[in-house]
């Protein structure tokens, strides 16, 4: 048995525990531990990406209990891709945080690794109840990180977030309980078999639990009626935390994609309608995000609504449940995660340099480094709005090509219009901040390389994704193909024999 799949869990868990012991006494050692474990995570996820490149599944049986009796971790192309996306974002946001953000509260270095533990665990686990546990780890760490720095705005947004997610957890457990009561198993591969073989009279109960799961994951992902917590939370959080949160919405999307390709796919009793409902939900989310982007009066709020748009766009692709749609969405996913993360960091730099005007669209002093920040803003805006030549454009082209024009006027119309509204809003934001200025720049606010470099790197990754668009999109299409042949996943998880 290959032990590598558990490394992305052990590294942050150990790091978080060591930092807990070091609290209050050794702040520099805490920074070193966080840095080492996040950098280690990047190396490990690169190695895992290499492992799954050929298309094999790596199943890690905890305690060597065979599935479906024990808990398994399953590494496939999708989870390796998401692990890699997470670890790149995490390393760069951590570097940014080390420039000072981490000192704005006491416990940053405890919860940062634990947040990564929750995210990585959710991507890796092959057990539904274990998914719940990792969601809770992710959430409790995110509650604490969202409140990092304190202040009324964070407390208010944090309270909404916590109450909503506790209610969501209750629904998650109800769905898990229903599924367990119906099938007697919680292993996702085993569940897939039993759902497919279930009696027709059980179908309504399976539908109910599938929809409950959709509600729960939709809440995490911020889909249309459940997205109201996101703008307040993301726009009030400390920059490096907000940038890290760019990946947590994708955990919800990952879970939707996993259950609707594996357990509730079109062969089952549930979801002949999934491939029409999911894209529609995605497109409505895009519309809601588009209105938010146009109405936002602050840069951070604008970027938070860009996250909503990106979630909707991703679901519009994934929800089609075909190779091209999922492949396009998976190409778009790292792009949008890194770029929105970079934009949150950039918004923090801009807000700091504008003094009391913060990130509002008001006539204020010019930033102290107008050329550097302006260039980065231009790069980020082009990438986020999906203009050529950067990867946002390629992702959207792949997405639009995944449906025939006759079938999906809606998808083309909504996605292109959302791109236009994002472009208008970002143009307005840029001209307010960089051109419609008055007075002198606030002295002593210029950012050093410790803050500029991580921001620039996150945004430049969009260029990297553009240069390597062909191999990346080949990989994501292969990942989509792997997702749409769940028989191989099931066979790999439930394989017997093969003792180490």
């Amino acid at each position: 048995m290959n032990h590598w799949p558990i490394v992305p869990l052990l590294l942050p868990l150990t790091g978080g525990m060591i930092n807990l012991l070091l609290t209050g006494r050794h702040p520099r050692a805490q920074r070193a531990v966080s840095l080492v474990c996040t950098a280690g995570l990047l190396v490990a996820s690169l190695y895992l990406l290499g492992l799954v490149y050929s298309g094999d599944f790596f199943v890690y049986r905890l305690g060597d209990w065979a599935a479906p009796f024990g808990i398994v971790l399953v590494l496939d192309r999708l989870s390796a891709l998401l692990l890699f996306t997470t670890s790149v974002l995490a390393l760069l946001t951590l570097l940014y945080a080390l420039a000072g953000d981490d000192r704005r509260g006491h416990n940053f270095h405890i919860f940062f690794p634990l947040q990564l533990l929750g995210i990585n665990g959710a991507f890796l686990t092959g057990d539904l109840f274990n998914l719940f546990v990792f969601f809770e780890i992710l959430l409790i760490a995110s509650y604490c990180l969202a409140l990092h720095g304190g202040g009324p705005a964070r407390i208010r947004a944090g309270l909404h977030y916590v109450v909503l997610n506790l209610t969501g957890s209750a629904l998650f457990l109800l769905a898990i309980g229903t599924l367990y009561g119906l099938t007697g198993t919680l292993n996702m591969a085993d569940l897939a078999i039993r759902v497919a073989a279930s009696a027709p009279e059980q179908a309504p109960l399976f539908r109910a639990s599938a929809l409950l799961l959709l509600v729960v994951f939709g809440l995490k992902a911020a889909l249309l009626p459940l997205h109201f917590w996101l703008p307040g939370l993301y726009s009030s959080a400390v920059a490096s935390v907000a940038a890290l949160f760019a990946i947590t919405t994708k955990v919800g999307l990952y879970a939707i994609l996993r259950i609707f390709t594996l357990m509730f796919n079109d062969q089952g009793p549930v979801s002949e309608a999934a491939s029409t409902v999911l894209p529609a939900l995605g497109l409505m989310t895009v519309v809601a995000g588009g209105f938010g982007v146009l109405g936002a009066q602050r840069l951070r709020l604008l970027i938070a609504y860009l996250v909503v748009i990106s979630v909707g766009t991703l679901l519009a692709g994934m929800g089609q449940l075909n190779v091209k749609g999922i492949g396009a969405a998976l190409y778009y996913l790292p792009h949008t995660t890194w770029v929105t993360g970079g934009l949150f960091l950039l918004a923090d730099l801009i807000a700091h340099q504008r003094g009391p005007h913060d990130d509002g669209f008001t006539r204020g002093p010019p930033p102290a480094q107008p050329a550097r920040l302006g260039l980065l803003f231009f790069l980020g805006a082009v990438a986020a709005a999906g203009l050529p030549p950067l990867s946002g454009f390629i992702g959207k082209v792949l997405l639009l090509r995944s449906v025939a024009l006759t079938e999906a006027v809606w998808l083309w119309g909504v996605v292109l219009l959302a791109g236009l509204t994002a472009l208008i809003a970002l143009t307005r934001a840029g001209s307010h901040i960089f051109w419609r200025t008055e007075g002198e720049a606030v002295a002593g606010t210029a950012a050093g390389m410790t803050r500029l470099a991580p921001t620039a790197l996150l945004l430049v990754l969009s260029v990297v994704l553009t240069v390597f668009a062909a191999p990346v999109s080949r990989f994501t299409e292969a990942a989509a193909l792997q997702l749409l042949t769940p028989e191989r996943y099931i066979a790999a998880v439930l394989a017997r024999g093969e003792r180490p």
Partner: protein
Amino acid sequence: MEALASLTVAVVVACGVYLVLRARTFPVAMGLALLSYAVNLFLFFTGRLVSGAPPLLGNSPSASADPLPQALVLTAIVIGFGMTAFVVILALRARGELGNDHVDGKGEQP
């Protein structure tokens, strides 16, 4: 027995949902606690209602209770307890920082 059990869960969920929708943080915290109780009961019942049987497989499989829901409910209780404690502390903190105990932090409108 089954009817009574499901009725219990239903009533507790209804009370929990009602309280969660209130405007002040104390009823909301109570509602979340009630919801988690209801969910724990529900999880426990998913192993079917068996009385007087150990959660161990003996010679006759019919005379045993399903142990897995018991393990699940234990996990759910621990997590629910921790989260409820967190939300209570957060509500107190919000009371201090925002100056009132309304969930939206705005207080009574004059």
